[in-house]
């Protein structure tokens, strides 16, 4: 047990970085998801195609490949950003593709009459989406978005591979010094589980609070 208490500071720093990575990239993913889902249901064909291309390209290359590509490729083309920032942006864009698909299914679940009534009032397509469709769509996909939040949390561990010292990387460093992998990685695993339990609770609460009466 001493291996953990002796290295609490390292674990703490890693955990903080994991939480930061997760919350920031999740916020970005939701924003990207809303925009891309809106593109995918747009009446303009080019925008629909752009939304679809985004999802296909992002989902069909592993996140680790995107991370490595960004960390080593961006400086080549003159974009210099910190490792943490790069990781946040890449994870946000990647998870954004999944969020977009979840949100799009929510949009499709909103009865067509809602959008028709909105347009019949004189709202533009964008206003209808923003004021009538999306608020209802998002409430129906709280559960899938909660799963995406947990997936985002787990995927932040990949940032370890490009040098961000988040929880997994921190555990690895402690293990290099102490060689007690079981204790160290079980501790890291429990921390991840605790965090995803929090996401589960938040999702459940939101779902109960925001349920729509029909």
């Amino acid at each position, binding site marked *: 047990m001493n291996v953990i208490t002796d290295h609490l500071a390292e674990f703490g720093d890693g955990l903080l970085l994991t939480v930061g990575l997760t919350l920031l990239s999740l916020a970005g993913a939701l924003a990207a998801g809303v925009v891309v889902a809106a593109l995918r249901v747009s009446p303009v064909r080019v925008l629909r195609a752009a939304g679809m291309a985004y999802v296909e390209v992002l989902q069909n290359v592993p996140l680790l490949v995107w991370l490595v590509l960004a960390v080593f490729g961006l400086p080549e083309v003159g974009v210099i950003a910190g490792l943490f920032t790069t990781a946040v942006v890449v994870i946000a864009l990647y998870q954004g593709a999944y969020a977009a698909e979840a949100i799009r299914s929510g949009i499709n679940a909103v009865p067509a009459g809602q959008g028709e009534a909105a347009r019949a009032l*004189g709202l533009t397509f964008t206003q209808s989406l923003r004021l009538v469709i999306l608020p209802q769509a998002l409430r129906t996909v709280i559960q899938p978005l909660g799963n995406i939040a947990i997936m985002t949390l787990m995927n932040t561990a990949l940032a370890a591979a490009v040098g961000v010292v988040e929880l997994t990387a921190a555990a690895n460093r402690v293990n290099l010094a102490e060689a007690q992998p079981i204790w160290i990685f079980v501790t890291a695993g429990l921390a991840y589980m605790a965090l995803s339990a929090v996401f589960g609770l938040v999702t459940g609460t939101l779902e109960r609070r925001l349920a729509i009466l029909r």
Partner: protein
Amino acid sequence: MIAVRGLHKRFGDQTALRDVDLDVARGEVVVVIGPSGSGKSTLCRCLNRLETPDSGEIRVDGAALPAEGRALARLRADVGMVFQSFNLFHHKTVLENLTLGPTKVRGDSRAEAERRARELLDRVGIGDQAGKLPAQLSGGQQQRAAIARALAMRPKVMLFDEPTSALDPEMVGEVLDVMTGLARDGMTMVVVTHEMGFARQVADRVVFMADGEVVETGTPAEFFASPATDRARDFLAKVLSH
């Protein structure tokens, strides 16, 4: 107020509207009747371009219907629509349903929009339901709220697509009463309905449709007493026999 010329609309190989002409004068109440599938809803939905016609021309208050975008939205703001299934916004209170359009489309202040919304809710007899969600209202109350929502935009014309068909029988009257009041106040109205009593008493003109065509049109007195076509006679025999 509304002038329709040579309207055609197909869904795949199914023709929903065939060469439809229709004129509605300012202040006129036109009731559209006809068998199910005859194109009444499609006609109604073409009038504010919820359906895009294949050909033909529609003018509302002199202006041709714009095809897309802001100009179309602006025109729709002047054309109120009431749906069979109410289509109140589920996530908003009744009051918010009424203020959304005026604040976002007309640019009214929130206070002004709320004041007018409460006035309209009183007018349709549900002033005490303003703070509720649509799901907490009866069907008749929801439809009256939907009418008030359309009126909140100060429309030049109101379209009704079978506004009482989804209601329990005991609630039909309260909605028809609101519509009759509107007609008396001089609103220009196009009403698709199977309520023959309403057509007789309130319509200035009845339009009978079958198979996507306007088969016959006339005053309710003429039309109900002596329909000129066999199809209208058959239809009336069916709907009036019970």
